[in-house]
Protein backbone atom coordinates (compact mmCIF):
# COMPACT_ATOMS: atom_id res chain seq x y z
CA UNK A 1 0.00 0.00 0.00
CA UNK A 2 2.74 2.38 1.05
CA UNK A 3 4.89 1.68 -2.01
CA UNK A 4 1.89 2.17 -4.21
CA UNK A 5 1.32 5.60 -2.70
CA UNK A 6 4.90 6.57 -3.42
CA UNK A 7 4.60 5.33 -7.00
CA UNK A 8 1.48 7.43 -7.38
CA UNK A 9 3.44 10.46 -6.14
CA UNK A 10 6.40 9.82 -8.44
CA UNK A 11 5.20 11.92 -11.42
CA UNK A 12 4.58 14.86 -9.08
CA UNK A 13 8.02 14.51 -7.51
CA UNK A 14 9.72 14.34 -10.92
CA UNK A 15 7.72 17.34 -12.04
CA UNK A 16 8.81 19.32 -9.00
CA UNK A 17 12.44 18.28 -9.51
CA UNK A 18 12.40 19.36 -13.17
CA UNK A 19 10.80 22.66 -12.14
CA UNK A 20 13.50 23.44 -9.57
CA UNK A 21 16.25 22.50 -12.01
CA UNK A 22 14.87 24.64 -14.81
CA UNK A 23 14.25 27.52 -12.42
CA UNK A 24 17.82 27.22 -11.22
CA UNK A 25 19.14 27.77 -14.74
CA UNK A 26 17.52 31.17 -15.10
CA UNK A 27 19.50 32.67 -12.28
CA UNK A 28 22.59 34.79 -12.69
CA UNK A 29 24.65 35.43 -9.58
CA UNK A 30 27.52 37.72 -8.60
CA UNK A 31 29.18 37.33 -5.20
CA UNK A 32 31.84 39.93 -5.88
CA UNK A 33 29.76 42.86 -7.03
CA UNK A 34 31.15 46.34 -6.63
CA UNK A 35 29.12 49.10 -5.02
CA UNK A 36 30.67 52.54 -4.61
CA UNK A 37 29.02 55.46 -2.88
CA UNK A 38 30.26 59.00 -2.84
CA UNK A 39 29.09 62.00 -0.85
CA UNK A 40 32.05 64.31 -1.36
CA UNK A 41 31.87 68.08 -1.19
CA UNK A 42 34.26 70.26 -3.16
CA UNK A 43 37.30 71.48 -1.21
CA UNK A 44 36.82 68.89 1.52
CA UNK A 45 38.25 65.41 1.98
CA UNK A 46 36.51 62.84 -0.23
CA UNK A 47 33.72 60.85 1.38
CA UNK A 48 33.76 57.68 -0.65
CA UNK A 49 33.58 53.99 0.10
CA UNK A 50 33.77 50.81 -1.94
CA UNK A 51 32.26 47.41 -1.30
CA UNK A 52 33.81 44.72 -3.49
CA UNK A 53 31.87 41.74 -2.23
CA UNK A 54 28.24 42.66 -2.68
CA UNK A 55 25.84 39.93 -3.77
CA UNK A 56 23.45 40.27 -6.69
CA UNK A 57 21.00 37.77 -8.11
CA UNK A 58 19.09 38.30 -11.36
CA UNK A 59 16.40 35.95 -12.55
CA UNK A 60 16.03 36.45 -16.32
CA UNK A 61 12.74 34.55 -16.39
CA UNK A 62 10.92 36.76 -13.89
CA UNK A 63 13.15 39.87 -14.26
CA UNK A 64 13.57 40.01 -10.50
CA UNK A 65 16.73 41.46 -9.00
CA UNK A 66 17.93 41.05 -5.44
CA UNK A 67 21.12 42.60 -4.09
CA UNK A 68 22.74 42.61 -0.69
CA UNK A 69 25.66 44.60 0.69
CA UNK A 70 27.14 44.13 4.13
CA UNK A 71 27.85 47.48 5.78
CA UNK A 72 31.17 46.35 7.22
CA UNK A 73 32.25 45.55 3.67
CA UNK A 74 32.39 49.26 2.75
CA UNK A 75 36.01 50.38 2.87
CA UNK A 76 37.07 54.03 3.10
CA UNK A 77 40.49 55.49 2.43
CA UNK A 78 40.39 57.11 5.86
CA UNK A 79 39.98 54.55 8.65
CA UNK A 80 38.46 57.10 11.06
CA UNK A 81 35.79 57.89 8.48
CA UNK A 82 35.09 54.16 8.17
CA UNK A 83 34.73 53.94 11.96
CA UNK A 84 32.34 56.89 12.12
CA UNK A 85 30.34 55.53 9.18
CA UNK A 86 29.83 52.24 11.01
CA UNK A 87 29.33 53.52 14.53
CA UNK A 88 27.55 56.87 14.19
CA UNK A 89 25.82 57.01 10.85
CA UNK A 90 24.86 53.62 9.46
CA UNK A 91 24.99 51.89 12.90
CA UNK A 92 26.15 48.63 11.36
CA UNK A 93 25.94 46.70 14.63
CA UNK A 94 22.16 47.14 14.62
CA UNK A 95 21.65 47.26 10.84
CA UNK A 96 24.40 45.10 9.33
CA UNK A 97 23.15 45.06 5.73
CA UNK A 98 21.45 46.88 2.90
CA UNK A 99 19.04 44.89 0.75
CA UNK A 100 17.54 45.83 -2.59
CA UNK A 101 14.63 43.88 -4.02
CA UNK A 102 13.21 44.94 -7.33
CA UNK A 103 12.21 44.16 -10.86
CA UNK A 104 13.15 45.21 -14.38
CA UNK A 105 10.00 46.61 -15.96
CA UNK A 106 8.82 45.90 -19.50
CA UNK A 107 11.81 43.87 -20.58
CA UNK A 108 12.06 40.53 -22.30
CA UNK A 109 15.49 39.20 -21.40
CA UNK A 110 15.39 36.13 -23.63
CA UNK A 111 14.61 38.31 -26.66
CA UNK A 112 16.43 41.60 -26.06
CA UNK A 113 19.43 40.72 -23.95
CA UNK A 114 22.61 40.24 -25.93
CA UNK A 115 26.03 41.57 -26.79
CA UNK A 116 24.71 45.06 -27.51
CA UNK A 117 24.22 46.99 -24.30
CA UNK A 118 20.61 47.83 -23.46
CA UNK A 119 19.20 50.29 -20.98
CA UNK A 120 16.39 49.03 -18.78
CA UNK A 121 14.14 50.58 -16.15
CA UNK A 122 14.32 49.13 -12.68
CA UNK A 123 11.95 49.68 -9.82
CA UNK A 124 12.38 48.32 -6.34
CA UNK A 125 12.80 48.91 -2.66
CA UNK A 126 16.08 49.56 -0.87
CA UNK A 127 16.16 48.73 2.81
CA UNK A 128 18.91 50.30 4.87
CA UNK A 129 19.28 51.50 8.45
CA UNK A 130 15.86 49.97 9.22
CA UNK A 131 14.10 52.20 6.66
CA UNK A 132 12.75 51.47 3.19
CA UNK A 133 12.83 53.64 0.12
CA UNK A 134 11.53 53.07 -3.38
CA UNK A 135 14.28 53.36 -5.97
CA UNK A 136 13.64 53.88 -9.67
CA UNK A 137 16.62 53.97 -11.97
CA UNK A 138 18.09 52.92 -15.30
CA UNK A 139 20.55 50.04 -15.53
CA UNK A 140 22.72 49.03 -18.46
CA UNK A 141 22.68 45.34 -19.26
CA UNK A 142 24.91 43.39 -21.60
CA UNK A 143 25.27 39.65 -22.02
CA UNK A 144 28.39 37.95 -23.32
CA UNK A 145 28.32 34.13 -23.23
CA UNK A 146 27.21 33.19 -19.75
CA UNK A 147 28.01 36.49 -18.09
CA UNK A 148 25.65 39.43 -17.71
CA UNK A 149 27.17 42.81 -16.96
CA UNK A 150 24.86 45.08 -14.99
CA UNK A 151 25.91 48.64 -14.29
CA UNK A 152 24.10 51.73 -13.13
CA UNK A 153 23.71 54.37 -10.50
CA UNK A 154 21.14 56.13 -8.37
CA UNK A 155 21.00 58.93 -5.86
CA UNK A 156 19.79 58.77 -2.27
CA UNK A 157 19.97 61.13 0.65
CA UNK A 158 20.92 60.27 4.26
CA UNK A 159 17.61 61.73 5.49
CA UNK A 160 15.69 59.15 3.38
CA UNK A 161 16.95 56.57 5.83
CA UNK A 162 16.77 58.64 9.01
CA UNK A 163 20.53 59.08 9.13
CA UNK A 164 21.35 62.30 10.88
CA UNK A 165 24.55 64.14 9.98
CA UNK A 166 25.88 66.20 12.92
CA UNK A 167 26.13 69.97 12.36
CA UNK A 168 29.89 70.01 12.73
CA UNK A 169 30.44 67.89 9.59
CA UNK A 170 27.28 68.86 7.69
CA UNK A 171 29.05 71.01 5.10
CA UNK A 172 31.67 68.33 4.47
CA UNK A 173 29.19 65.61 3.50
CA UNK A 174 27.01 66.05 0.42
CA UNK A 175 23.23 66.02 0.85
CA UNK A 176 22.99 63.72 -2.15
CA UNK A 177 24.82 60.43 -2.09
CA UNK A 178 25.70 58.93 -5.48
CA UNK A 179 25.66 55.16 -5.55
CA UNK A 180 27.32 53.31 -8.43
CA UNK A 181 27.03 49.62 -9.00
CA UNK A 182 28.91 47.21 -11.19
CA UNK A 183 27.89 43.55 -11.25
CA UNK A 184 29.22 40.68 -13.34
CA UNK A 185 26.57 38.02 -13.00
CA UNK A 186 27.47 34.45 -13.86
CA UNK A 187 24.92 31.83 -14.89
CA UNK A 188 24.15 29.31 -12.15
Amino acid at each position, binding site marked *: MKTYRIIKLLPIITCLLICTISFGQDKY*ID*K*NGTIVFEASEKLFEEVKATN*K*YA*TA*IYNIETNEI*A*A*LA*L*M*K*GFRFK*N*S*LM*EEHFNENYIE*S*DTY*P*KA*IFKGKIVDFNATKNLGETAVEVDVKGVLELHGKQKTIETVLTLQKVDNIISMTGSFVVSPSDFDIEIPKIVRNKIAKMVHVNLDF*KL*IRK
Partner: protein
Amino acid sequence: MKKKTAYIIAFSVFTLGVLACAVYGYMYKEHRDIATEEVDYSLSSNDLKNVMRTDSVSGQFIDKVIKTEGVITSIEQNSVVLNNVIQVNFINTDVSMLKPEATLSIKGRCVGYDDLLEVVKIDQATITNP
Protein backbone atom coordinates in the same frame (compact mmCIF):
# COMPACT_ATOMS: atom_id res chain seq x y z
CA MET B 1 63.85 88.80 30.48
CA LYS B 2 64.51 88.16 26.80
CA LYS B 3 65.61 84.66 27.64
CA LYS B 4 62.28 84.00 29.37
CA THR B 5 60.20 85.05 26.32
CA ALA B 6 62.38 82.88 24.13
CA TYR B 7 61.70 79.92 26.45
CA ILE B 8 57.94 80.57 26.39
CA ILE B 9 57.90 80.77 22.59
CA ALA B 10 59.96 77.62 22.24
CA PHE B 11 57.70 75.79 24.69
CA SER B 12 54.46 76.86 22.95
CA VAL B 13 55.80 75.87 19.53
CA PHE B 14 56.77 72.48 20.90
CA THR B 15 53.35 71.91 22.57
CA LEU B 16 51.53 72.99 19.42
CA GLY B 17 53.67 70.63 17.39
CA VAL B 18 52.91 67.69 19.68
CA LEU B 19 49.18 68.54 19.61
CA ALA B 20 49.13 68.81 15.84
CA CYS B 21 50.85 65.41 15.56
CA ALA B 22 48.32 63.86 17.98
CA VAL B 23 45.34 65.27 16.04
CA TYR B 24 46.83 64.18 12.73
CA GLY B 25 47.51 60.71 14.13
CA TYR B 26 43.90 60.45 15.31
CA MET B 27 42.39 61.65 12.05
CA TYR B 28 44.59 59.67 9.73
CA LYS B 29 45.36 56.57 11.72
CA GLU B 30 46.33 53.44 9.83
CA HIS B 31 43.79 50.80 8.80
CA ARG B 32 43.77 47.58 10.78
CA ASP B 33 46.27 44.98 9.69
CA ILE B 34 44.27 41.77 9.99
CA ALA B 35 47.21 39.57 8.94
CA THR B 36 49.25 40.53 12.03
CA GLU B 37 46.33 40.74 14.50
CA GLU B 38 45.73 37.95 17.02
CA VAL B 39 42.96 35.46 16.18
CA ASP B 40 39.79 36.19 18.21
CA TYR B 41 37.84 33.05 17.34
CA SER B 42 38.83 29.79 15.74
CA LEU B 43 36.01 27.56 14.54
CA SER B 44 35.01 25.19 11.76
CA SER B 45 33.29 26.60 8.67
CA ASN B 46 29.94 24.98 9.49
CA ASP B 47 30.02 26.21 13.09
CA LEU B 48 30.84 29.69 11.83
CA LYS B 49 27.86 29.62 9.47
CA ASN B 50 25.57 28.41 12.25
CA VAL B 51 26.57 31.17 14.66
CA MET B 52 26.45 33.85 11.97
CA ARG B 53 22.94 33.00 10.81
CA THR B 54 21.66 33.47 14.37
CA ASP B 55 21.08 37.21 14.75
CA SER B 56 21.43 37.22 18.53
CA VAL B 57 25.02 35.93 18.50
CA SER B 58 26.35 37.03 15.10
CA GLY B 59 27.25 40.52 16.37
CA GLN B 60 29.88 38.99 18.60
CA PHE B 61 31.82 37.72 15.55
CA ILE B 62 31.39 40.57 13.08
CA ASP B 63 34.56 42.61 12.52
CA LYS B 64 36.59 40.08 14.56
CA VAL B 65 39.60 38.12 13.35
CA ILE B 66 38.41 34.59 12.60
CA LYS B 67 40.39 31.50 11.80
CA THR B 68 38.58 28.74 9.95
CA GLU B 69 39.18 25.94 7.50
CA GLY B 70 37.39 23.92 4.88
CA VAL B 71 37.51 22.30 1.48
CA ILE B 72 37.51 24.66 -1.51
CA THR B 73 34.17 24.17 -3.26
CA SER B 74 34.48 26.96 -5.81
CA ILE B 75 36.89 29.60 -7.01
CA GLU B 76 35.61 32.62 -8.89
CA GLN B 77 36.84 36.12 -9.55
CA ASN B 78 38.76 37.09 -6.42
CA SER B 79 37.08 34.79 -3.98
CA VAL B 80 37.17 31.24 -2.75
CA VAL B 81 34.24 29.39 -1.22
CA LEU B 82 34.90 26.87 1.56
CA ASN B 83 32.44 23.99 2.14
CA ASN B 84 29.80 26.03 0.23
CA VAL B 85 29.29 28.19 3.34
CA ILE B 86 32.22 30.61 3.69
CA GLN B 87 33.19 33.15 1.02
CA VAL B 88 36.77 34.31 1.46
CA ASN B 89 38.38 37.33 -0.18
CA PHE B 90 42.13 37.61 0.24
CA ILE B 91 44.34 40.65 0.77
CA ASN B 92 46.80 39.82 -1.95
CA THR B 93 46.76 36.12 -2.68
CA ASP B 94 46.43 35.04 -6.30
CA VAL B 95 43.37 32.76 -6.16
CA SER B 96 44.24 31.16 -9.50
CA MET B 97 47.08 29.40 -7.64
CA LEU B 98 44.52 27.52 -5.53
CA LYS B 99 42.91 24.27 -6.56
CA PRO B 100 39.34 23.08 -5.95
CA GLU B 101 38.92 20.34 -3.37
CA ALA B 102 42.10 21.30 -1.55
CA THR B 103 41.79 21.92 2.18
CA LEU B 104 42.47 25.48 3.07
CA SER B 105 42.99 27.12 6.45
CA ILE B 106 42.54 30.89 6.53
CA LYS B 107 42.52 33.86 8.85
CA GLY B 108 40.53 36.98 8.08
CA ARG B 109 37.99 39.55 9.15
CA CYS B 110 34.36 38.42 9.46
CA VAL B 111 32.26 40.88 7.43
CA GLY B 112 28.84 39.35 8.08
CA TYR B 113 26.19 36.89 6.96
CA ASP B 114 24.72 37.08 3.48
CA ASP B 115 21.21 35.61 3.65
CA LEU B 116 20.65 35.75 -0.12
CA LEU B 117 23.38 33.19 -0.82
CA GLU B 118 23.49 31.83 2.74
CA VAL B 119 27.22 32.32 3.12
CA VAL B 120 29.46 34.03 5.65
CA LYS B 121 31.70 36.64 4.06
CA ILE B 122 35.30 37.02 5.19
CA ASP B 123 37.69 39.63 3.81
CA GLN B 124 41.35 40.67 4.18
CA ALA B 125 42.21 36.99 4.53
CA THR B 126 45.58 35.27 4.51
CA ILE B 127 46.28 31.57 4.09
CA THR B 128 47.48 29.88 7.27
CA ASN B 129 47.93 26.34 5.94
CA PRO B 130 50.77 24.61 7.73
